[in-house]
């Protein structure tokens, strides 16, 4: 199932450092939303705040709310573990579990959540690997180590692992920045298939990638060193890349800064 996300007045802090300033944005279901902007503007931080992953860093906290179909993931008593089951994440560097086989990697989330039943897990493993366009490449070596795959395959393995737990939302933090162009293409194709089932939010430094894969684009910028990053504007990707409202967006898109 695919759900919408409403971010309201979200401020993100690392200890005393104010990283992201009062972001309000809406992420549509069944679509790809790209977050772009220069390094350090807080887009990865915002992404990690969308499934409470930033909390694993000591001292990190947020103010404001993030509503998933109207339910605040920062509501009192809400368990971050259950938030992360609903909102999955794929990281910049492929990070398969080195002690597990390819199949065990895919079903790791379910198995660690206590799902048993070999047949059920095998089915989910196949479905998820097919969903990640990896099945044909690995079906003969499901028991080999996940580390034996190439970088692009490992990243698709991580995507299969993330979708195996059936999240509503998939967050991707620069998922292609460590990959070659062919693997990147494979992942971009995959994203356009996955958006029929998941709400996808992707952080990318690659402007062409944002233009190719996303329906909506949000541009973040850093007003100055030591100041918090902020959302400059968010709109349909076509609009942002052809006729943005803000001068800063246009400068960034066209390669002219500040």
């Amino acid at each position, binding site marked *: 199932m695919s759900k919408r996300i409403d971010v309201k007045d979200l401020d993100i802090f690392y200890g005393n450092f104010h990283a992201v300033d009062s972001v309000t944005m809406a992420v549509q279901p069944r679509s790809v939303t790209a977050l772009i902007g220069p390094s350090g503007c807080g887009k990865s931080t915002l992404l990690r705040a969308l499934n409470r992953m930033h909390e694993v860093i000591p001292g990190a906290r947020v103010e404001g709310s993030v509503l998933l179909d109207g339910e605040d993931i920062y509501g009192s008593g809400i368990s971050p573990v259950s938030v992360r089951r609903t909102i*999955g994440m794929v990281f910049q560097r492929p990070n*398969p*579990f*080195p002690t597990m086989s390819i199949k065990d990697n895919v079903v*790791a989330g379910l198995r*660690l959540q206590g799902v048993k039943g070999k047949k059920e897990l095998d089915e989910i493993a196949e479905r998820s690997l097919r969903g990640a366009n990896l099945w044909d490449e690995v079906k003969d070596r499901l028991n080999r180590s996940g580390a034996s795959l190439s970088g692009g395959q490992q990243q698709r393995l991580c995507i299969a692992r993330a979708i195996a737990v059936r999240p509503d939302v998939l967050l991707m933090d620069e998922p292609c920045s460590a990959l070659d162009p062919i693997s990147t293409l494979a992942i971009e194709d995959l994203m356009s298939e996955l958006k029929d089932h998941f709400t996808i939010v992707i952080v990318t430094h690659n402007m062409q990638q944002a233009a190719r894969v996303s329906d909506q684009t949000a541009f973040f910028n850093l007003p100055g060193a030591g100041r918090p990053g902020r959302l400059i504007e968010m709109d349909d990707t076509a609009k942002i890349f052809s006729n943005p409202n803000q001068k800063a967006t246009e400068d960034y898109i066209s390669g002219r800064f500040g």
Partner: protein
Amino acid sequence: MTADIDSLERPSASPTFITISPGRRVKDLVARILVTGAFLLALVPLLWLLWTVVKRGFPAITSAAWWTHSLQGVLPEQFAGGVYHALYGTIVQALIAAVLAVPLGIMVAIHLVEYGLGRLARVTTFLVDVLSGVPSIVAALFVFSVWISTLGFQQSALAVSLALVLLMLPVVIRNTEEMLRLVPDELREASYALGVPKWKTIVRIVLPTALSGIISGVLLALARVMGETAPVLVLVGYSRSINFDVFQGNMASLPLLIYSELTNPLPAGQQRIWGAALTLIIVIGVVYVLAAVVNRFLARKRS
């Protein structure tokens, strides 16, 4: 700005590549000789020791009853019997210590690496440092004063094991800590992002990833305490016959057997000493080999 960068640029007049000057060749040769010489020098006492122990101990450990009999009923001047009773003591005392120290040490390390923030973790780290500097005789006397003098228990193999726990603990903690820190945070994050709770991430992802290093560290700590002499001198009496009961009675161990045979001036005693020394080296060697095998096995399983 550009002037600064210009000054970083290599002057175009200087040759691009330089030849190795005779001075550098000489320095290189001297450094080679020093490093190789130091290595050989360090090797001399090692090989000498091994050679001496093997040469003098070999007849003893190949004698008929060495591995299967104790010294019960064997007269001081008579070379007969074996070190079965002492071998049992050494292994059992070390194993009991490991059973107590390993879970405790691993849990302390997990706390320090995965949860430890603030004062408690800093104090613990400091105390572990202090503990690792405690001489074995002090650990033995501490156990004597608490376990035997204060709590009123008898001297026993168990008391020895308790002292060995104090000696193993800092080694296990330090090693496990290092192995856990080697596990990349990305794996922890990958697990959290799948909706796996922290404790399960530690048990199912972090520990298995660090397992081979933790196990070989434990085995090395085990090998380390097997040769400890101070605890057996202080905390248990020597016995010439086998005693399976770790809770009471005297129990021999290889260091204790060596120590007690030192008072025997006869050739049979000398033979037993060298034999026991070689036996101890072999037992510790076996543990080291085991550590390497475990490491190799787990590494192969991974690829």
